[in-house]
């Protein structure tokens, strides 16, 4: 039985975060983070703070580097805001201005603005979700750096630079391919983790592929919408030259294609938001889960090594106490990771299922809505054109 309140991560009123506003300045996006809290650890109960994308990355990295969180799935970092698409389009628009009619140009400009807005919406959403994942997790919400991120009323740039020097991005520099080998190579005694390992490794490649294919599909939809736009423009040109009743007919047709374009665009962007974004997000989340398995596998390897060291020490009769202590620590770490890992992976599956369900339902409902709108537009137009 699935909770009806699905992936709404702002459940807990003690710490509520959202991003109500964002500013796009050339290359940089400035997000306005809005916080409402009843926790005493915060100085104020409601406040806002501006943050850049790089600040999010800093926060993510510090959390990743924190040993204490090794047994948790670390919410994936939000991807960099990507305005490449609209920017390219803007370029094309500028270049093609001379070859287009005024109406076509205005239309494309409008379209461009809509696309810009869509990218904007996407990036705000994904940054927001990152913060909400943190705020809704019992351990992350207490993280010191998270609090700094939320509260520090100065620019975080200086802190960011320091952090880089401290950690040197050591985790990130590790060769990721080692993950897979290590994870699959480790002999697993725990049935749960064995299953998870098999599942995650396979699922991760499948979801990556599905994301790529969904992206291509969305792009094709957008291309079709573009074509409708051009067809509409061409029909208007022909209409302009006709001074008969036919002119009205042509203009009506041009209008139909223009409306079709808008609908097709909506279909494309809704599909992107509900399907492609969902797949993209979970591709990253699956990676975070894999990272957890990796850390656990490393801990297991460490534990096994510590056993070997202990045996050697016992044989030699030297440094036994040290080796025993080391072995105890490794075991403790491994057990801790296993225990919290199990919890995390179980709730991860629940979260994933709920998110898929919500998005698939919403996407389907939107598809139906758009198709019905298209149909009524088309049928209405057919009637008008027939009666002319």
């Amino acid at each position, binding site marked *: 039985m699935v909770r009806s309140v699905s992936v709404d991560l702002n459940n807990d009123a003690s710490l509520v975060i959202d991003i109500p506003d964002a500013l796009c300045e050339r290359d940089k996006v400035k997000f306005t983070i809005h916080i409402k809290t009843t926790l005493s650890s915060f100085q104020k109960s409601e406040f806002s703070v501006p943050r850049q994308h790089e600040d999010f990355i800093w926060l993510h990295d510090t959390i990743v580097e924190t040993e204490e969180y090794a047994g948790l799935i670390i919410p994936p970092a939000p991807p960099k805001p990507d305005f490449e698409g609209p920017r390219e389009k803007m370029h094309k628009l500028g270049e093609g201005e001379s070859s287009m009619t005024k109406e076509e140009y205005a239309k494309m400009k409008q379209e461009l603005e809509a696309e810009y807005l869509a990218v904007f919406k996407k990036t705000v959403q994904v940054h927001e979700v990152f913060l909400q994942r943190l705020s809704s997790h019992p351990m992350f919400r207490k993280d010191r750096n998270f609090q700094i991120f939320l509260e520090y009323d100065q620019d975080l740039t200086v802190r960011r630079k320091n952090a880089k020097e401290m950690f040197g991005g050591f985790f990130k520099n590790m060769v990721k391919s080692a993950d897979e080998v290590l994870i699959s190579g480790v002999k697993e005694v725990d049935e749960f983790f064995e299953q998870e390992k098999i599942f995650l490794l396979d699922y991760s490649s499948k979801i990556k592929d599905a994301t790529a294919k969904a992206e291509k599909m969305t792009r094709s939809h957008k291309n079709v919408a573009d074509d409708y736009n051009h067809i509409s423009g061409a029909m208007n040109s022909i209409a302009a030259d006709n001074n008969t009743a036919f002119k009205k007919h042509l203009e009506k047709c041009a209008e139909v294609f223009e409306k079709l374009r808008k609908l097709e665009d909506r279909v494309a962007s809704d599909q992107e938001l509900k399907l492609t974004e969902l797949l993209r997000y979970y591709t990253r989340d699956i990676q975070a889960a894999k990272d957890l398995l990796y850390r656990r596998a490393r801990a297991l390897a460490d534990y096994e090594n510590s056993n070997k060291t202990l045996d050697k020490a016992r044989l030699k009769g030297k440094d036994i106490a040290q080796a025993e202590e080391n072995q105890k620590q490794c075991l403790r770490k491994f057990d801790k990771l296993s225990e919290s890992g199990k919890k995390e992976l179980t709730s991860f599956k629940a979260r994933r299922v709920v998110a898929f369900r919500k998005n698939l339902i919403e996407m389907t409902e939107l598809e139906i809505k758009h198709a019905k709108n298209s*149909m009524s537009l088309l049928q209405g137009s*057919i009637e008008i054109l027939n009666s002319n």
Partner: protein
Amino acid sequence: MSCMRRFCHETQSHDSLHSCMCRRSVALLLLKMSEERDPAALSGSAQTEGEEDLFVSAMESPEAARLSAEDISPSSNGPRDDDPDDPDDLFAEATEEVSLDSPERQPILSDGPSPAITPVTISPRVDVFDRSPDLDEDEEENRDTFDIQISVSDPEKVGDGMNAYMVYKVMTKTSLSIFSRDEVCVKRRFSDFLGLHSKLASKYMHMGYIVPPAPEKSIVGMTKVKVGKEDLSSVEFVEKRRSALERYLLRTVKHPALLKDPDVLQFLESSELPRAVSTQALSGAGILRMVNKAADAVNKMTIKMNESDAWFEEKQQQFENLDVQLRKLHASVESLVCHRKELSVNTASFAKSAAMLGNSEDHTALSRALSQLAEVEEKIDQLHQDQSYADFYLISELLGDYVRLITAVKGVFDQRMKAWAKWQDAQVMLQRKREAEAKLQYASKPDKLQQATDEIREEIEEWEGKVQQGERDFEQISKNIRREVGRFEKDRVKDFRVVIIKYLESLVHTQQQLIKYWEAFLPEAKAIA
């Protein structure tokens, strides 16, 4: 393509005519539909019943698409004199008789431009200034009994390797008396069609008749077919060509003068057609033709015609503009066809990927839902593919036909200019002869004077005759063009109106199916627990 195959499957039990119809393209039916919707057309006799619009039947809402081209209103199609794409249009004055290597590749040689051959039914038409839809009596009468159906079907490959060619079955069903039989089937190859067109062009173009252009050649397309590639692209190519040939014939017989032309009758009826010397794309003859066309173009530029009739100037400008705009529209539609195909391919690819994801998913309910999503997307990809065929056959091909037609129309205007130039040249010559006559009085020796005077008088008479003929020809071609253009514009409007409705209906169908598929999926998504 698959929607066509589906239809074939359904109609297997029908008689041979229906199975011919099996491979109808939508544009074809559309063309016929445009005719049947003409209010002035009185339904002629027998039309085959139960013929289904191919595409519509695939849409599960079959309409009886009556196949007859009963509407007599001739489509005004132009000679492709100036069509740079058509090196085969022989009307260029040159009659090249360069013969070539292989016996199959005879250089094209029409019956030569033969202005002397007047087509069968050219009689002075009624008031050409009446640009209303009224036709003159002849045509009105014919319309009542006009009934002819033509189909091009059953492409068959003959021969092997590079000498292979496709042969099509051309079936004509008619009750018109000019035909010797009610129903006749002949086999024709592509070059036969081109041969027919070149004959018609050489006979009628100079009179201002817009002769429908024949479909274009394609070396790449044909080579694939010859080489025996059975892949989808060569199958599509053959279907595209078959459909184009059918539209070509229908347009041709829609023209009342062309319908009665003996070459057309022979084409439709005789079992043996003299091998049309044909259409070697890159032959020496071809190159010669292109050179002559160029010369023609230069010639055109030096003829500065004194246009006394504003109508012609206005129309010419209109057609120039329409040409540009139609090409642009055509290009956009071609782009749509391409992107729609891509959408179909990408959707199919996503469907597969979603299925794999579903298999991999370990949560049972979600796994099932993902598999079902994959199935929905697969159905949708088929939908997109079908829609792209509609995009193509309904709109794109028709626009392509009209782009070529416009070129033909422009050519007809050029013919008028040539006629004017000929008339003017005759006047100049006449003037010269008269001047020569005057000079004679002073020039010649008395004993030779009489003979010279007689001679020059003869010449003067000859040129007077030519001037009169030139003027008559010019007036006649002007009349014809007005009428042809009137018909063309009427047909264009009609065709467009019908096409757009058909196309929008195809889009409606796609949306209906989408609703159906997604509504079926919604409970599956909700069932994830």
